[in-house]
């Protein structure tokens, strides 16, 4: 051991001063300044606050509508469809990419720039740095999401107007109700966005300057989308943090289908908390004297991937008892009820368009009889070989009306019904109204099978 004394004797100018970590608020502002000084973040903010508005306004002027996206077929009818189409698109692509760019890089950028030590010397608390970085990246992400929502709404309302919105079960929402539901839908989408952001934080902490960290949220989102395409059990589907990107549509049913939405939001928040905690634990244990920890990435990956896989198992197990449905959750009874409900609501809408005598859903007593593969396939699960015959009754008429629909039922419960006759009900894209031609609401329509809904819903107006 060497003990050397070097230097002359002198007096230190002042007494010892306690080490005081910088308050989190100040570090947070510092992190915001750094984030907002990056050209790509500025570009994203500009894009999020302008592009959806331009998109919805432009689509409203087009003859072709994005009818493969939920609410897309109503973009000519009301401005409130615009922000929902944007939300559907954002949940699939934009939000995962935004979280990748912001949260997936917020720690890695310090590794690339070699600025960790300067930051640590100044702040004196890795915990506070972590908190500030997480808060700052969340702030920017919320700003981006708010931009998407506000821009899509403003663009839709400016281009089309403030008309009632047709819900996922065909019922009409007044503009004020539509406004509240749109706002709530975007608020719910924040939960899975935060889960992706937390995965981004984890990737950024784990993988350091490696660009793989940047890709973690995007890859996780793609994996979850692929999983949603598979015929997974409902419990597993709901245990994935991205399901809230789908289940917000329950807000646009009557009555609102909140069970799936609340579970999905809760699961997303649990994932957000778990991934943030894992990132925190890894970060505060990091030794900053050795420079970047690229070499530790693989080992740390095991410590992060395994807990998250465990979390998936845990949330699946927790959700399982809450799911009355087993398997895919798509049953014949639920499909029939969903189609009949949507048909009844939309028939009433068509009646109003054609200025026929008003009818109510109760008077119509619409029912649907649905089969798969001409009765050769078990009538459950997703598929595009569903065929339904809808029957309804008009007041003062003894003979019931019937209409046929070909159905494409997706594994997440969304269904698209394509009219197959008779022509005067659902055979034409347009109907002739006294004020001119208008889109026929019964020609094609969307519906949603509640994956958690019990077969006999007590509030279902079409219940047997």
């Amino acid at each position, binding site marked *: *051991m*060497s*003990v*050397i*004394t*070097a*230097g*002359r*004797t*002198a*007096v*230190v*100018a*002042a*007494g*010892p*001063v*306690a*080490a*005081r*970590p*910088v308050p989190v608020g*100040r*570090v947070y*502002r*510092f992190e915001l*300044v*750094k984030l907002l*000084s*990056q*050209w790509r973040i500025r570009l994203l903010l500009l894009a999020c606050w302008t592009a959806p508005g331009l998109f919805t306004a432009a689509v409203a002027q087009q003859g072709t509508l994005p009818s493969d996206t939920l609410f897309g077929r109503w973009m000519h009818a009301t401005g409130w469809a615009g922000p929902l189409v944007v939300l559907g698109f954002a949940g699939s692509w934009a939000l995962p990419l935004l979280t990748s760019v912001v949260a997936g890089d917020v720690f890695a950028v310090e590794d690339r*720039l*070699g*600025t*960790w*030590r*300067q*930051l*640590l*010397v*100044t*702040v*004196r*608390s890795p915990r506070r740095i972590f908190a500030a970085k997480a808060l700052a990246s969340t702030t920017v992400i919320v700003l981006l999401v708010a931009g998407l929502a506000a821009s899509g709404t403003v663009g839709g309302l400016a281009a089309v107007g403030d008309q009632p919105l047709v819900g996922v079960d065909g019922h009409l929402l007044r503009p004020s109700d539509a406004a509240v539901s749109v706002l709530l839908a975007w608020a719910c989408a924040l939960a899975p966005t935060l889960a992706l952001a937390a995965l981004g934080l984890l990737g950024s902490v784990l993988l350091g300057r490696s660009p793989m960290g940047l890709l973690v949220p995007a890859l996780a989102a793609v994996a979850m989308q692929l999983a949603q395409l598979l015929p997974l059990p409902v419990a597993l589907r709901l245990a994935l943090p991205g399901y809230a990107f789908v289940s917000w549509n329950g807000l646009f049913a009557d009555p609102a289908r909140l069970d799936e939405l609340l579970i999905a939001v809760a699961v997303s928040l649990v994932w957000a908390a778990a991934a943030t905690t894992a990132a925190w634990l890894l970060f505060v244990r990091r*030794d*900053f*004297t*050795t*420079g970047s920890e690229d070499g530790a990435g693989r080992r740390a990956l095991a410590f992060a991937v395994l807990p998250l896989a465990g979390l998936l198992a845990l949330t699946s197990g927790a959700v399982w008892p809450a799911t009355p449905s087993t398997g895919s959750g798509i049953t014949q009874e639920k499909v029939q009820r969903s189609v009949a409900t949507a048909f009844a609501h939309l028939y009433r809408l068509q009646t109003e368009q054609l200025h026929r005598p008003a009818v109510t859903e109760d008077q119509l007593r619409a029912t649907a009889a649905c089969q798969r593969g001409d009765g050769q396939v078990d009538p459950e699960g997703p598929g595009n070989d569903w065929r339904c015959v809808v029957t309804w009754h008009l007041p003062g008429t003894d003979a019931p009306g019937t209409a046929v629909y070909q159905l494409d039922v997706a594994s997440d419960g969304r269904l698209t019904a394509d009219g197959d006759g008779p022509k005067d009900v659902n055979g034409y894209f347009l109907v002739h109204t006294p004020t001119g031609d208008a889109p026929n609401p019964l020609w094609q329509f969307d519906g949603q099978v509640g994956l958690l809904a019990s077969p006999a819903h007590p509030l279902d107006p079409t219940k047997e």
Partner: protein
Amino acid sequence: MRDTQLAVRAHGLTKSFDDVVALDGVGLELAPGRIHGLAGPNGAGKTTLLGLLLGLAVADEGALEVLGRPVGRALAAPDGVAGFVDGPGLYPSLTARKNLAALASLRGQDPRSARIDEVLAEVGLSEVADDRVRGFSLGMRQRLGLAAALLTEPRLLVLDEPSNGLDPAGKQHVHRALRRLADDGVTVVLSSHRMDDLEALCDEVTILAAGRVRFSGPLGELATDSRELEHRLRTSDPAAARRVAATVGGVKVLSETGAEALVVRATGPAVEELVAALVPAGVRVREVAPVVPPLEAAFLALTEQQEDLP
């Protein structure tokens, strides 16, 4: 010397990274108002030691006091410590001025009243204050890093290779700023691979090798050490000079017969004796110079000696 008078007091500092021992029982006591150089080959433990002083890591064993306060696992480095290791840590998307303003805000200083213009002038960066750091050379970044440290009015300044990439004018700015700080009572600890930089700037130096202190003290002691060095002599008569050198005690002739210059291995006093013997023998001495500068030779001797140890 009372312990509280020291800027740094380290005893038995040991730090390992897995199987690699970066510091092995290092002790160090640094007084205020001195510029102290840390030298050593790559992997000697310089950056690790600087990191401990900055509170970036904690030692596995040993005791460390900085500015009179113990520093350890739950005890961060106290206020008054500033500096950088492994580069100055700047944000390329911000201008030089905004980098300093953001750091000032982070420390709770009002960026408008902070001495930003003053410290930029001190390191010679006033003219590029509003340019983005993205376009800065390594030397300019080093100087801006120093400016960031000066902004805190430190009492202990820790700098890792601050002369890296500096042109002569930049080096002058940095040396002047550091000397001014030392005159004001600030302790400066800096590492460098360049012994000429250390010689120009430091009052004292610590040489580390394989995590251990090999030398610590004033530079003069290192340079005037009595170890043998190689010297080159240019004379009017190389053959005669060679004959005279063979007769002087403590001088070993290394150059071949017939060579233009005489190269000998000897201590400083022995070389003086040789020169004194050449003059009465009618040999005119045109140049006497060490083959390797004394500090560098001492450095090499100390570190190579360390590498030879088991």
